[in-house]
């Protein structure tokens, strides 16, 4: 995982500089900062069903026992997995497993959702489908999402603000507000001229690095 994400996820400490949480008022995270991660790697427990995996997030983050069933089912439905609650990861496709991971992360009602190249391993079609899901959920939740990706189109399609990092050691090379209006329709977006201009702009930034 990118050191930057590790720091945000409280798994690493800073050598210098500061991290600001909660609208920049606090320098350290506290218990109110609920952080969840959608990992690049497989992160489901193979011995738990789709529902069981979401339930684990709920148990760990202290959701009241009576609400677990409802919240868990609701989030599985939200990622398009209604009816798959009792399936084990080994019975689901890679794209569906990512959806479960997304549901498990969102079910904890995070302030910050870190996504570390979450859909990099998916085929183009599954990737587009789950991206559409993310775009839809994006409008419904009040979570700050930090998504790391090498896919420039994904970055442009799924963001309010884009940050280009340089090669190691990573430095911020460009911060660009995303002018594309929300809510977004990904099917229409891919034919949009403005979208492609933005993609080109970022590409040039990326390729000029070395």
């Amino acid at each position, binding site marked *: 995982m990118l050191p930057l994400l590790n720091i945000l996820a409280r*798994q690493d400490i800073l050598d210098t500089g500061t991290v600001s949480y909660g609208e920049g008022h606090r320098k350290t995270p506290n218990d109110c900062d609920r952080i969840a991660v959608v990992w690049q*790697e*497989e992160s489901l*427990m*193979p*011995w738990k069903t789709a529902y069981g995996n979401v339930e*684990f997030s709920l148990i*760990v983050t202290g959701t009241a026992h009576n609400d677990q069933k409802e919240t868990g089912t609701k989030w599985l439905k939200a990622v398009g997995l209604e009816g798959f609650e009792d399936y084990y990861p*080994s*019975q689901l496709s890679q794209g569906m497993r990512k959806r479960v991971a997304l549901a498990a992360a969102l079910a904890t009602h995070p302030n910050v959702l870190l996504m570390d190249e979450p859909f990099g391993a998916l085929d183009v079609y599954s990737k587009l489908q789950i991206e559409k899901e993310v775009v839809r959920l994006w409008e419904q939740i009040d979570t700050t999402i930090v998504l790391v990706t090498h896919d420039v189109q994904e970055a442009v399609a799924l963001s309010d603000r884009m940050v280009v990092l340089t090669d190691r050691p990573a430095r911020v090379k460009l911060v660009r507000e995303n002018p594309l209006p929300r809510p977004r329709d990904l099917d229409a977006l891919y034919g949009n001229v403005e979208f492609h201009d933005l993609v080109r702009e970022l590409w040039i930034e990326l390729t000029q690095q070395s």
Partner: protein
Amino acid sequence: MDRTNPTELKKDAFRWSLSALRWGLVTSLVVLWELGVRFGAIDAYYFSSPARMAENIFVWVEDGFVFKHLALTLAEAGVGFGSGLLLGITAGFLFAVSPKVDAVLSPFIVIMNAMPRIAFAPLIILWFGFGFLSKVVIVISLVFFIVFFNTYRGFKEINPVLLKNAVVLRATRWQVIRHIYLPATVSWTFASLRVSVGFAIIAAILGEYMGASGGVGYLIDNAQANFDATGVMTGLALLTVVVAILDALLQRVEARFTKWRLNYQITENRL
């Protein structure tokens, strides 16, 4: 499962014909054996015969003493198995959790496992006597390593992302043990159970061969000393049946605990 599904029906038919073939094979071997003895092609003095074995079993069961010996062997195997299981899981857990213990002791464990335990059996009998305890120790010496290595491996093979994710979500130590460590190892431990049950009984019998005053191994050894092939064969047949029953039971338990692994097949069938 949908029974009217044509592929399901075909599979059922296949399963039936398979078990019919298997039983047919067993029956014809038994019949051939018996006929061979009747027509003088096989010497019953050395090879016994199904009829003699059946008669022998009848006598043993009618007399009831066979149950006493069987119970003794099963008790030795059972106590040894239980203790070996407990020790194996505990040690596997300790080694997995503490890198220090692992680093210092792991070569010794490997060496001890490489040592032929069977060659040690006479020494164990010398140390622990001819009674119950020595058999239990022999069983433990075999079961422990199987369970230990499987438990250890179960711990080591846990996907590190799961642990990282639990930490990010601020899971308590107990929650991590209960939801991640435990289920991850239980499936590995169960995978080793069927192997170790077989070993437990073999070890108990072995101990009884070396010196005992009861048990199925003692029965077989006694029969052998009297050149009684039928007695030896009957003892072996008895053990085979007992182990087969235990294995079938364990298979069920294992299937229940590792459902998530076996499920692969169900998806494939559905596609």
